[in-house]
């Protein structure tokens, strides 16, 4: 029995059903090779135009939704240490703690690393294409966790805006604990991770290029 638990799964099911119908109409045409009557043209319009259009639309949305998830980020082998750390129930790293948050746990990579500007989703996805290019050209033949490849680093310093989406800088407890630096934190002179630096500890010790650096 097929159960659909989310909109993404529903879209994927619709896309697969339409793809199957389109292929079925195509195979019917190839086997029967009927004359191009009105009915044949109408059927082919469904099989070559309408159903593929639905597959493109629903498939794109479902794929975009999937690209926000942690399994997608972890599907490149160099992300293995990051993924294992984030999913480790005993780990106390910030990545693991946030991944255990049921509000966005499954999308923890994207939630913390996405840009939050007006076109944040677009710039994040463009960076994703850059990741893919780098992966294919620089990391594809590296070790199981990317050993031997160049060190992984962020394209730009981590912005505290990502933290402040959830952690308000106006709460009483926050102000009590950060009274001396609150203005500098808000202005960006001090980043959250300057002090809360245990973000990906396991990953950092096993990151690609670590062995290379140790030898130097």
């Amino acid at each position, binding site marked *: 029995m097929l159960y659909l638990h989310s909109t993404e799964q529903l879209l994927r099911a619709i896309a697969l059903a339409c793809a199957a119908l389109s292929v079925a109409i195509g195979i019917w045409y190839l086997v029967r090779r009927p004359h191009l009557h009105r009915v044949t043209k109408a059927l082919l319009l469904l099989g070559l*135009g309408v159903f593929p259009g639905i*597959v493109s639309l629903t498939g794109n949305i479902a794929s975009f939704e999937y690209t926000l998830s942690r399994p997608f980020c972890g599907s*490149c082998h160099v992300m293995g240490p990051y993924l294992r750390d984030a999913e480790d129930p005993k780990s106390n790293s910030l990545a693991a703690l946030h991944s255990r948050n049921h509000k966005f746990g499954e999308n923890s990579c994207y939630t913390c690393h996405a840009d939050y500007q007006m076109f944040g989703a677009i710039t994040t996805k463009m960076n994703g294409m850059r990741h893919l290019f780098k992966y294919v050209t620089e990391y594809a033949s590296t070790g199981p966790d990317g050993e031997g490849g160049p060190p992984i680093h962020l394209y730009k310093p981590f912005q505290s805006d990502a933290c402040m989406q959830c952690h308000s800088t106006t709460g009483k407890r926050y102000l009590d604990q950060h009274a001396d630096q609150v203005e500098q934190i808000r202005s960006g002179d001090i980043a959250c991770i300057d002090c809360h630096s245990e973000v990906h500890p396991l990953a950092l010790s096993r990151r690609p290029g670590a062995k290379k650096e140790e030898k130097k």
Partner: protein
Amino acid sequence: MKHEMAKKLVFFSVIGTIAAMVFMAGSILFPHPLLLVLAMSMGQGIAIFALAMFLLAVALDLQSSGAAYIAVDESAPATPEPGPETPPAP
């Protein structure tokens, strides 16, 4: 001639669409980053090209059937030209 070409175009259009659908369904079932990017760019490109070929085939088919209709029409006996209009009865 055009009808034969239309049939060929439809044939290649169907092949292209099947390939694109398999590609895109594969990327939905096995969403690896590289496969996803290829399917959602190349797969959709192939599907759009295949649809364009089908529409061209339909246009060619309509054109050839229209030409055949005109040929049949021309071979039919010419209808007598209408005479001068009769003046309306007073």
